[in-house]
């Protein structure tokens, strides 16, 4: 079931109403029933696999509480993450047709994180199997995350929340905002990516513009979906962790990854990167490297290698294909290089007396965008050759003679105007948020005469300018496939 579908809206409305009608102690049951319905509509494969994972997670966590065994944890993680890796990699490698359970990666990572937390005594094992099931099967987050920890979500799901008008209103606003970003902007930009993939004799500016627009589309698509998910949840007083914090304002690639798909990055940091970097082998490597490369660089080496590994895994997680490997390896190399060369940059900045504000901020912003864009050439293309070819052709033929014709061939002028205004609106709101202004919170507290027209505008914009209805595949969220 797509979160763009009418079924989802009806289900979410039903769950929200039932949730508040039940006594506080029983409200989690509304979530359980709603999540089961979501999975039933998504196919038996989804409910079967998720239930199997939940059973392993629930039983495994209870066992881990009694027998704190590393072997047991490894076995449980192998079952959990191994089944995910198999399901995600087997079809593309073998050519077999398998229907993947909805939210496979998200609930697999979430359950793995829970097991590790129980093993590390950071969380208590949930004794009620249904509540354990709900933790990974909570329906809004199955569509595209976020990946929550038991500490963030477990308690909120099981303790019934009182109805709070503020949460309900800000949740509804967030939901609308998400639909606006996804349906009005992101889906309208599909045509620009298709134009790039179609090939032909494209001018360099067109390719570069297309890659930039793909990057924007990806952001609008993914963050829009997250807003819908978080908005639905917030209407019931359940706060899901933030997954995007305006990543395109980042000053470095490292910061970009701290703002983009935050919960995935946090998961890899907590459960993979840090453990590797501070492992016995990692510390030994750091000591040995210090003797060769100097103390600062040497100590940074284990972290850099762990980062490279983590990004390779993130790449492969996106898809079992070479483009994804290049995507991950590229970001891993950039991040590792930035870690290793950090002492050098610091001394250069100090020597040149470069400020961290003003013009330098802009320069760093442009540099970060440039580094991100290089990776995007491999994010939407199908084969490495295609990505490299487009990259090469970006620097050729910068003739603007057919500008108008090229643009119109992608989509009519009116569509460009709509997408442009939509992007400007999102940019404006993001700029305000970047200045620490809580736009949603402020809007929810303003006078009805201001708030309602804004909300009606969003509703009408989505209803009229949204891409949906006949001929539209509403399952086409870019990140649902993960």
């Amino acid at each position, binding site marked *: 079931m797509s979160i763009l579908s009418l079924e989802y809206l009806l289900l979410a409305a039903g769950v929200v109403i039932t949730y508040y009608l039940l006594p506080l102690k029983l409200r989690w049951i509304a979530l359980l029933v709603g999540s089961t319905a979501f999975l039933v509509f998504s196919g038996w494969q989804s409910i079967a696999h998720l239930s199997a994972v939940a059973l392993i997670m629930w039983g495994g966590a209870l066992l881990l509480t009694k027998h704190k065994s590393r072997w047991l944890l490894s076995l449980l993680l192998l079952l959990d993450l191994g089944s995910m890796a198999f399901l995600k990699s087997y079809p593309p490698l073998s050519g077999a047709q398998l229907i993947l359970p909805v939210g496979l990666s998200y609930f697999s990572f979430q359950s793995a994180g829970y097991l590790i937390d129980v093993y590390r005594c950071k969380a208590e094992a949930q004794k009620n199997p249904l509540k354990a099931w709900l933790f990974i099967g909570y329906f809004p987050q199955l569509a595209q995350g976020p990946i929550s920890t038991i500490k963030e979500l477990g308690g909120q799901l099981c303790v019934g929340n009182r109805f709070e008008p503020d949460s309900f209103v800000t949740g509804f606003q967030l939901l609308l905002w998400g639909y606006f970003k996804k349906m009005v902007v992101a889906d309208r930009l599909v045509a620009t990516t298709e134009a790039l993939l179609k090939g032909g004799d494209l001018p360099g500016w067109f390719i570069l513009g297309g890659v930039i627009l793909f990057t924007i589309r990806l952001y609008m698509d993914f963050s829009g979906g997250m807003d819908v998910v978080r908005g639905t949840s917030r209407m019931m007083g359940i706060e899901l962790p933030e997954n995007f914090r305006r990543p395109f304002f980042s000053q470095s690639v490292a910061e970009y990854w701290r703002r983009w798909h935050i919960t995935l990055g946090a998961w890899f940091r907590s459960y993979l990167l840090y453990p590797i970097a501070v492992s016995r082998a990692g510390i030994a490597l750091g000591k040995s490297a210090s003797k060769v490369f100097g103390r600062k660089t040497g100590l940074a080496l284990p972290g850099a290698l762990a980062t490279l590994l983590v990004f390779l895994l993130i790449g492969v997680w996106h898809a079992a294909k070479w483009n994804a490997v290049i995507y991950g390896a590229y970001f891993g190399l950039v991040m590792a290089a930035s870690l290793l060369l950090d002492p050098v940059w610091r001394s250069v900045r100090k020597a040149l007396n470069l400020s961290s504000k003003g013009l330098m901020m802009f320069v760093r912003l442009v540099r970060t965008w440039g580094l991100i864009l290089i990776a995007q050439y491999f994010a939407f293309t199908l084969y490495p050759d295609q990505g490299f070819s487009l990259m090469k052709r970006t620097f050729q033929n910068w003739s603007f003679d057919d500008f108008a014709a090229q643009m119109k061939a992608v989509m009519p002028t009116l569509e460009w105007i709509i997408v442009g205004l939509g992007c400007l609106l999102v940019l404006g709101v993001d700029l305000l948020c970047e200045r620490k202004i809580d736009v949603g919170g402020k809007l929810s507290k303003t006078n009805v005469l201001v708030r309602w027209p804004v*909300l009606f505008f969003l509703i009408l914009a989505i209803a*009229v300018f949204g891409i949906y209805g*006949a001929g539209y595949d509403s399952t086409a969220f870019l990140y649902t496939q993960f």
Partner: protein
Amino acid sequence: MVGQGVSRKRKLIWFWLRLVSFVMLAVLLLSYANYVLTPKHDYGICSMMNLYRQPKDSIDVLSVGTSLVYAGINTNVLWAEYGIASYNLCSAEQPFWVSYYTIKEALKTQRPKLILLDAKPSTYTRDYSKRGRIILSTFGIRGLDNRIGAIFACVEKPRDAIGFILGLPEVHSNYARLQDNDFILPPDNGGRGADWKGYIEADAVERFQRPSLVWNNVRRNMNEREEEYARKIFDLAKQEGIPLVLIGLPNPDYANDHMYYNALWSLAEEHGILGINYNDPSLRFGLRYSSDFSDWQHLNVKGGIIFSRKLGADLTKWFALPDRRGDKKYASYDACMEQWLNRHPHFESSGWENHPLPWFVPPPDYP
């Protein structure tokens, strides 16, 4: 604590009141957006929408069917020459399964003395409506029961119906094609006003020859769904006690339709329904295939006038239809005719001089 409880209760009551108002306003806004974005082409929903604006029980002859009817039956001729108060309730390519629901809906406000049912849908071979405009024509039906019924009858899978029932999912992308009159509520029927009776002039001339065919009784099976709904319409008319007449409008492509019409006529006989097929070569009433059609299916203005005269003469001969001219309740028919003449002082269609109309004064520059 008690004070806090009361304050929260008051806050919540106030909140729910605002929420209900918000939802109502949002529904209103979306309904208007749906109305604006729904295509109001001549061949679409206008005649159904305008039916609700007709005075109650002011229609004696209800002509239901496809574009053949709305282009062929000139309600102004029937009114001016015979005093017949008739209304064309049609849309392009309207199958019987839509006609059934439009008739049911019309009977909520009108009690016609006669229903004319276009025979053309008997030639349609589809099980459902692939063409959006057929389903969109049902958007004019206000009654939810009949609208939903018509939509479900049109779509291939029940799941597809929800988009049409809600409306916006199917029409929202029309924003690029909006015109000023799309915003007018109630609709102006393409500038024709509320008195319009559903006649749409096809103003062109295309030359054809009289269809060449052997006039026999050989039948070709109708599509099962068309047959099912034709039967339903016959039963509905019988149940309501309203005489129903099948009508075959002349069209140059008739040779391809003949065997289907035979099947429908035999079906009608089973139900004791009368049918008049004006494609019958023995019925000569002055129609010229060389000048009286606007395309391969539709009568043009001149052809429509000739045909409507013949139809009016036949209807008054066979049915006791009252002459409503001069009755104040039927003043809208005079207004409709007047507006039609004002809007179209002359047509491209040739041959007016051979068919002078007592109520038609050709303009001075008329050739």
